[in-house]
């Protein structure tokens, strides 16, 4: 009969209306600024520079190779390479970036800088509340603003950070073993050379 569907629909909406006052599960809206959902591990928004240890200037992994600057599709990274070298975390003298700026308003969150970085120095952040009152200066992040600790990286991307740390540790161990082997070989060669020379004489 005509009107049956309308009655059915009206009762359905009435049920929803009343139900939303009774059961909290119906109201799925997250009241954003007050309530926040945890961000997914894979979420990403904007790159940051990882540093090891506590001092951001000392521990910065970036060696200013400028690959990310060259690869960045929208060209939002600006790096000035240092003239001198500083000790890095592994105790090796390296160049470091004197200036490292990223323009947030230009960055397109493509993650290409992260893919190309050979030192795991640049990673994606998931901070999204970046609004500012100054649309030029406020959106151009400098080295200090970009530098975030490895602990923070572990917080936002736990799985990925653990993998990166493991890979870095392995590499470092390999390098150490290699250095050790090289040193041993050198010492042996020196020893044989010395003994051989002595025998000949």
């Amino acid at each position, binding site marked *: 009969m005509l009107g049956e569907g309308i009655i059915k629909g*009206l009762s359905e909406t009435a049920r*929803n209306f009343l139900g939303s006052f009774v059961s909290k599960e119906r*109201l799925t809206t997250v009241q954003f600024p007050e309530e926040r959902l945890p961000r997914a591990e894979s979420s990403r928004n904007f790159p940051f520079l990882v540093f090891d240890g506590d001092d951001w200037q000392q521990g910065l992994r970036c060696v200013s190779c400028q690959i990310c600057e060259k690869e960045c599709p929208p060209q939002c990274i600006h790096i000035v390479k240092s003239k001198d070298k500083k000790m890095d975390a592994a105790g090796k003298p390296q160049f470091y970036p004197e200036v490292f700026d990223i323009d947030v308003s230009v960055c397109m969150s493509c993650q290409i800088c992260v893919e190309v970085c050979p030192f795991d120095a640049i990673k994606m952040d998931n901070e999204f509340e970046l609004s500012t009152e100054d649309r030029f200066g406020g959106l151009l992040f400098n080295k200090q603003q970009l530098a975030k600790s490895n602990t923070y990286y572990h917080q936002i991307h736990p799985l990925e950070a653990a993998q990166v740390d493991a890979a870095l540790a392995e590499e470092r161990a390999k390098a150490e073993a290699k250095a050790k082997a090289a040193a041993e070989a050198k010492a042996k060669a020196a020893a044989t050379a010395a003994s051989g020379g002595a025998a000949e004489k």
Partner: protein
Amino acid sequence: MTETVDQIFVIFKHWIVMHVPAPWQTLVSLLVSVLPILAVFPGLFAITTILERKGLGRIQNRYGPNRVGPWGILQPLADGVKALIKEDIVPRSADKLVHFLAPLVIVMAAFLAYSVLPFGRNMVLTNLDAGVLFYFAVSSLTELGVFMAGWSSRNKYSLLGAMRAIAQMISYEMPLILSAVPVLMVAGTLSTVSIVEQQTAHTAGIAHWNVFTPWGFAGFILFMISSLAETNRSPFDLPEGESEIIAGYYIEYSGFKFALFFLGEYLGMFAISGLAITLFLGGWSAPFAFLSWIPSYVWFFAKLLMMIMGFIWIRGTMPRLRMDQLMNFAWKFMLPMALLNLVNTGLWRFLPTGITRWIVCSLVVGIPYVLLGRGLMHGKKLENRVYSFAE
């Protein structure tokens, strides 16, 4: 005491007029009657916007606006400020004068309609002998405003919206008026005040509201459906059609003129609800004798709020009709039913009182309702749509 509370506004008005020098009395009396209407109904509009947004939100399991003030109750204020400080853009190729006049015509037509509605006992602006006729004459001015807006904007969407509005409003004006005629037949008068007074009598504690009779009930339903269409409310909001023609006839309006359109639309809704209350729901009278101590204006506004709630509920339930469905419904269902209801009222008037009259009159509207409903559905299969790629 009850009498004083009931008549408090009337007494207050007389008191003010008494303290004014004689040559000014007419003017002051007019102002004192008109100003409350100009204040109360836009205020009701503000309340309704927040109630509607909240109610629709709840129907869709959302909270609705809750940012401005506690529970978002100051939202209308924020909306009003926003509308006032926005830029008022007039298209370069628009007909400037008509573009300017259209919102004014709509709001004025809506306000004029209130002049014949009795809000309480002795609370009516003018007791016209042809009150109902005046109401219909004035309320159809809205169509003019809508078409002025659509035509003067010089925009394809607005013109489409205006054409839809004209087609819809003219089609539904007929069932609207025809469904009101039975009341006039029984009451024997066009004066809104006398129509209400005839409904205030009680039998066995139940008031003689027109809606409590078979013809009155049918008339009320028909009247409400047509009034939905007349006021461009969902499911008959084709002239606006946000998803198809963006905003229809008021697409080119911004700032306060846009707010005026909204105001006009809601005022029209309140006015037509007020008329429905006057004609069918006993105006300011109480439904049961033991409740008659509640002041008359409280009854009127309580009924008005109930009607508004109904409008919101229907808006939250039904999707928009298609143009052909709209027209089919108007001409193949509403009009025949309204005409039949006229005959039915005649039968009711001349049959002897008793249970037979109830049965006969119920059947006279009930059977055609079922048959016409079948006719409307003829050849149309309603079934759950099967999607081949989705799901």
